[in-house]
């Protein structure tokens, strides 16, 4: 049986190419003969390296997406972003406080947000970017860390922001501050660290090291997971 291959026309960096229907932007670009060295990573939608700007036929809107997750449509115009040259302040997390003043100092542009929501529209992860920027403005670091948790740092928010905020870099600072200063401390962690340092698990690991692959596999699938 012969399978009919349906092709669609896309424009990559201004040139027209015929690519198989159903391709992602990433596979279409490679099919067209480009070797992508920057702007590609895990190919699974997790790493955020392949930010792409595109426009669909008949639509005036510039859209953003991950090249590895966005399927091409006929007449699509594509420009991949190899890297986002956004500002990234250097800081020592141990010298910071988890409040809005830290952001006034390191990311003053956060306070220029006019709530246009362009960042949220641009986010391929469907994160409410504007909402976490607004949370930072009022010093609610925990909320900002929570909302931005799924950020993969592709940079599309910053590329579209009219106030030139570098949302994703501010968000990772919020999550770092949350983890270091705001998250509830777990006493179990200290207990477990003591146990590890005292060598509690050494015999078990030594035994596992001597176990062959087949037996190891069996053990793995039969293991008991005690989440209490």
């Amino acid at each position, binding site marked *: 049986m012969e399978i009919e291959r349906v092709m669609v026309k896309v424009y990559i960096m201004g040139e027209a190419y015929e690519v198989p229907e159903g391709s992602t932007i990433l596979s279409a670009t490679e099919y067209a003969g480009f070797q992508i060295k920057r702007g590609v990573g895990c190919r699974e939608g997790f790493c955020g390296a392949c930010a792409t700007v595109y426009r669909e036929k008949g639509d005036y809107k510039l859209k953003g997406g991950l090249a590895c997750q966005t399927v091409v449509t006929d007449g699509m115009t594509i420009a991949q972003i190899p890297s986002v040259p956004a500002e990234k302040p250097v800081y020592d997390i141990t010298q910071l406080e988890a409040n809005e003043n830290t952001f006034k100092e390191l990311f003053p542009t956060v306070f220029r947000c006019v*709530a246009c929501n362009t960042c949220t529209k641009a986010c391929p992860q469907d994160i409410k970017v504007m909402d976490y920027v607004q949370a930072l403005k009022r*010093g609610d670091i925990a909320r900002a860390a929570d909302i931005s948790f799924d950020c993969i740092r592709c940079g599309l928010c910053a590329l579209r922001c009219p106030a030139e905020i570098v949302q994703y870099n501010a968000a990772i600072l919020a999550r770092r501050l949350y983890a270091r200063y705001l998250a509830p401390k777990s006493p179990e962690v200290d207990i477990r660290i003591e146990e590890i340092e005292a060598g509690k698990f050494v015999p078990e690991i030594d035994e596992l090291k001597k176990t062959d692959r087949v037996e190891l596999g069996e053990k793995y699938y039969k293991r008991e997971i005690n989440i209490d």
Partner: protein
Amino acid sequence: MKIPYYPGCTLKTTADYFETSAIASAKALGIEMVELPDWNCCGVVGSLTSDDLIRHLAPVRNMLRVEEMNARGDIENENRLLTLCSMCYNTLQRTNARIKQSSEDLESINNIMYLEEEPYKGTTEVVHFFQLLEEMGFDELAKKIVKPLKGLKIAPYYGCMLLRPEELGIDKPDDPTIMENFVESLGADAVQWNARSICCGSYHTVSNKEIVVKLAYEILHNARKCGADLLITSCPLCAFNLDNRQEEVEAQYLDFEPIPVLYFSQLLALALGLGVEATAFDKNYIDPRPILKKKGLLK
């Protein structure tokens, strides 16, 4: 009574005692202030550029949240949005008035906000806490006071944002009485003075501090000369300029005598007999406790 409440960024940070004192007082008066979900910055400062539509997005989104709260049933038939901060009141009110006049502007804004589930219909009314008290009746408020602030001379400081522009103000800009009525209902005396609606210098405090220091001196000195024990305000920026800047004022003007500047809600909380968590007098830059103790209002 339950009412949607818009805090604003400053009330969540440097002016947190304004919020805690107001919420506790409102509760004592039977008003439950329900904070808007996912609110954003009010927008701050009415833009003076002609093509400024984007500046109105932030206020509109907040007012849309009130329509959403009503639609979801988080709140019953309450289209008013309560504000405490004078600046937030002014910014939200200014935008609301504009888009209520211009369906074209409202449509443009709704077009930009296409990710919102529903467009803003323009049904929200912005009110300030003082207006809510006025509606309740200052006589009624007086009846609920358990600890009248007898003998305390209060200078009500309006500043700009509660009164101007005229069509948006909570009272007549040239002859306001709402704060005086509030003061009297607490059992205190409202000082008649000249500087109650002179600008504090506003954001000049960031880059031209000397302008603010001069204005703060004029305002505070006038209050003192007219016999005030302290001033009240509902604006965190005025509070910063008049309270925190007294260090610089004192250094520059030899005849200056520091005077406490409080959020009106702190004295409301005191008069309603609420505790130190609500009154939070330890948070003011110039400590108001000595004068309150002297007047026998605080132990």
